[in-house]
């Protein structure tokens, strides 16, 4: 466990699935060679196959006894989807626009499909997913090379690319399949919680760019952070699939607001909600019932009295309150800025020098 823990809260009632976060991350981090198929941040439709395909069924995480579970490594061609591009150059010669590979699968192949019968009880909602920077990460635990580490200063989980040998056990071990293999480097890469931005007092790119302002970022132990209030004070933000035993640090406000269902005659069923509670319990555990209750009662309170601190929080008035990075925390700590280095192996025991990231010549 780290000294402090950074966390993110995402309000699923407000996510419109616009993928601005996905693009913010893609252009910031994963537009490099070998990362084409990777989405450190993705937004998937629930219910749906997700990204990679059926990630919830691919094992990893821990059982009740705390033992790491075996998992399956998804395949780019079958499970993530091969990214395709078009022959834009050839258009000038009057040719047809064709993709360079036959598109057979990709992230969000089933976007907005959802489940149920239209128009009576069909439903879906979006889940944006990043690495959960777990307190007990499955990826870290499955690495036989000690190449994955959790920063003591803020709990961000990083891969030491010097130590990583591309064994890919981390992918099997992560129950969220949020670690990716870069075939060109033969190394693992994953969401870094935009730590170079965080260290400068900026939130991760996905959070900053979010047009729905659904993402809150802060330290869990900072009682003044909105993250702390949503998770610990109001207990309306819950981790995804906490049953997998990794103690994730990305929390979700469950989707409570959906239109009512229709009966066979097309009449509104009063008091009904299209999103089945069982599905929410599967994702967020039984605690989701308490969270829904709190959200509903605070909403009612706001309607009646015009006052509700929780509703004010969720309206997300200003970035400066949503992203509380405990100003100057990193400066005070004097961290090794921009150097993703695992201190345990800072100097080689048997070699004079271990290569480290440098800015080049």
């Amino acid at each position: 466990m780290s000294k402090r823990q950074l966390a993110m809260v995402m309000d699923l009632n407000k996510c419109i699935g616009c993928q601005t976060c996905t693009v913010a991350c893609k252009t910031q981090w994963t537009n490099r060679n070998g990362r084409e198929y990777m989405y450190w941040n993705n937004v998937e439709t629930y219910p749906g196959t997700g990204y990679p395909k059926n990630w919830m069924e691919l094992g990893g995480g821990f059982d009740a006894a705390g033992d790491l579970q075996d998992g399956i490594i998804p395949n780019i061609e079958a499970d993530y989807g091969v990214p395709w591009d078009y022959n834009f150059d050839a258009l000038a010669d009057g040719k047809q626009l064709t993709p360079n590979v036959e598109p057979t699968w990709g992230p969000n192949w089933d976007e907005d499909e959802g489940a149920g019968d239209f128009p009576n009880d069909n439903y879906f909602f979006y889940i944006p997913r990043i690495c959960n920077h777990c307190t007990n990460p499955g990826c870290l635990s499955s690495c036989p090379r000690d190449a994955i580490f959790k920063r003591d200063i803020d709990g961000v989980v990083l891969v030491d690319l010097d130590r990583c040998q591309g064994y890919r056990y981390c992918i099997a071990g992560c129950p969220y399949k949020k670690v990716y293999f870069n075939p060109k480097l033969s190394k693992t890469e994953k969401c870094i919680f935009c730590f170079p931005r965080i260290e400068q007092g900026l939130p991760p790119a996905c959070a900053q760019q979010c047009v729905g302002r659904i993402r809150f970022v802060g330290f869990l132990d900072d009682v003044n952070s909105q993250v702390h209030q949503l998770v610990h004070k109001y207990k309306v933000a819950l981790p995804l699939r906490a049953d997998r035993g990794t103690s994730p640090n990305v929390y979700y406000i469950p989707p409570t607001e959906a239109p009512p269902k229709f009966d066979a005659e097309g009449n509104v069923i009063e008091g009904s909600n299209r999103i089945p509670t069982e599905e929410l319990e599967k994702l967020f555990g039984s605690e989701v019932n308490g969270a829904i209750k709190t959200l509903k009662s605070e909403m009612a309170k706001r309607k009646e009295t015009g006052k509700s601190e929780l509703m004010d929080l969720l309206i997300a008035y200003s970035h400066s309150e949503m992203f509380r990075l405990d100003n100057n925390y990193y400066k005070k700590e004097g961290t090794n800025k921009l150097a993703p280095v695992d201190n345990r192996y800072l100097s080689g025991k048997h070699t004079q020098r271990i290569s480290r990231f440098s800015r080049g010549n």
Partner: protein
Amino acid sequence: MMQNSTNSVKKLVMSSLTAGAICATSAFASPVITAYKVDGDIKNIGVESSFWRKAKETEIIAYPQTTIHLNDKKANELNDGNKAKKIKVKALTDGQNIAFKMEWADKTESIQSGNAIKNTEFADGFAVQFAAKYDDPLKLPYIGMGSEGRPVMVYLQKAVAKLFEPNGNGDVAKQVNRANSPYFQKDLERFDIDVAHLARKSYQKGFVAEGFGSMTEIKDKSSEFLMDMKYKKKIFGASGWEGSVVRPLNDNYVKIYNDPIPVAFAVWDGDKMHRDGLKHLSTWIIVEFDGVQSDDKLKKEFDKPLDNADLKNGAELTKMHCASCHNYGNVNDAASAYMAPNLSNIGGYSTTPYLIESILEPHNVIVPGYNPNAHSNFAWYYGDKESGKTSAMPAFDYLSEQEVLDIVGYLKTLKAEVE
């Protein structure tokens, strides 16, 4: 107490070895490789060098690593019930360098291509391991990448076609995806060529290690070596790989004189998703120098058979004393498979002195085991480097000499059949 038990180990090993030597049928349990002395420089040789023709071939056996269970479900299914593999080894020396050539059967040539859409390719590969210190033949490093205070040097080559450095050797501009580059047509073709030049064409690495997970690549050029591997397709007989490694006799990490040395070999089969611990590995094998007559302790005392061990009694004692924590073969009595090293192939890749030391002085030969977070209820040791590590296994120094010999004799029989 410690002093006493150390003496008892020495005494036991010596007496067991002497007893073995007296036995009429005694022979070395493991084969001995002879390094053939050549005139000429072998510093830059590969698998196809004509120097190899003169060297004598020795067959050794590599056993499937089953000490720890790794967490890749598909790979585990593919490797269930693996048999042991034969490796043919030759050795050469020119007085400055030492070279090894390995030959092993592999039906499929598995190359990790480096293609951006292939994330489940695994490479065939091989490794040669040297003990940094081998003066005391009774205290060689643990075979699985050494143990604390007993480092090893490992040379590893994998059949990887193309690899890039994570920091692009500082050339950030060439790391962008071609679609994100500012180039078109001719310029884009040139960009592709420039990028291709930045790739490393071979995966050859030298590591130092003191146990699982501690392996650290030597990148400061303080150890020079050369490796080579080629796949040989055969119409008659088994297709397979040839691999070679050349290193100086002396460097900062291992010093080799004309005396026999222990060397170990490992091979990986990419087709079976082998990597890391999913591999076949040999026990320590003695390499002696051609024409050098030496009265060497290592060769004399290393791993002689335990002809006077009562295997039946050993099996019963093992079941009584070991099986509540260790699983092996069909014996799965441990409360959890993660409690202790699985001993199913221990007889294949462990030496007799190592097994004796493990039973009598487990604290001296601690295997780090799993990542401590993976199975947190079953740490294989307590404490840390500063405070001193204590093995979770108690010392079984109250057993009689004969009882220990019987157990070790039985453990030596625990190994997979040869393919």
